[in-house]
């Protein structure tokens, strides 16, 4: 990678890592309120609401920590892209249904306000970053395996 790509790679992983960790904290601290936010999306069967509300913030926290510490990067960046795709799908689905609910993205409090097109744009930006990062890390991984192949 040349210096531009290296700079972009580190900037992107640090930004996304910080965003995911920040997004996870309030949800981990308030599992009941986040379960309510998950339920409000009205897409999961009741049996899966609490499990999702418990596990999802930890996925965000651990993948955020991976991104910040530059560990398990292909897995973390790919998971970040998958998560952002799911979030965008849910937001689109609920905007189309006209459901007046909080995003629950960064806060479990109702004061965060209902989700809107700005929420969608913000998540699309994060998705683009996550996809770029996933592409770069995958490229790095293939280079690593290629080098290993030729040095054996």
């Amino acid at each position, binding site marked *: 990678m040349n210096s531009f790509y290296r700079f972009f790679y580190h900037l992107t992983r640090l930004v996304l890592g910080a965003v995911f960790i920040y997004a996870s904290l309030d949800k981990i601290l308030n599992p009941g309120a986040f379960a309510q936010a998950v339920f409000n999306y009205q897409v999961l069967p009741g049996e899966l609401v609490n499990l999702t509300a418990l596990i999802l913030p930890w996925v965000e926290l651990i993948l955020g920590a991976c991104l910040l510490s530059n560990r398990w990067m292909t897995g973390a960046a*790919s998971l970040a892209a998958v998560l952002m795709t799911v979030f965008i799908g849910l937001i689109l689905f609920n905007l189309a249904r006209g459901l007046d609910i909080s995003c629950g993205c960064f806060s479990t409090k109702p004061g965060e306000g209902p989700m809107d097109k700005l929420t969608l744009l913000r998540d699309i930006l994060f998705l683009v970053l996550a996809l770029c990062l996933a592409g770069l890390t995958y490229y790095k991984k293939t280079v690593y395996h290629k080098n290993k192949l030729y040095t054996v």
Partner: protein
Amino acid sequence: MQQSDVLRQSLIDTVREACFIMALSIIAALAVNLARTDFIPFIQDWSIEARLSQDNGDSLSIPLSEAKTLFKGNKAIFLDARGQELFNEGHIKGARNLPWHAVDDYFPEIIKDMDRETPVITYCDGESCNLSHDLALFLKNMGFTQVKVLVNGWTAWVENNLPIESDDK
């Protein structure tokens, strides 16, 4: 052949790392939930009846027939918990708009002529809409003693041809 091996190995690594992260997350989530004092059950009943039942076993829910009687006798205040835009498009006749998402802004103005003993019926739209439930709990916390939720209120009211009005010009 070697190129495809490289790509396959990279893909395997990616999936393996993602699985590690997921496994760690599941273990951490379940362990921390078990250890904390304010834990939530892993599986919970999210049915309307369960969500609207209070600690004393009473239900917050009010049947449409009772709500209709209170409406006709002008004995209750209806509070629409949806946003202002939806409220303006149409609401139960005489209802006041107290959007849950901006409850702190609207609350003082909406309740200034209301007695804490006044029967209040909150509603929103949709079987699983939770705005009215959240608003009802908030009102109870604020000292209102007779608060009920009309589940799926707007749709039920319209389907039964009960009086509505709109503020759209």
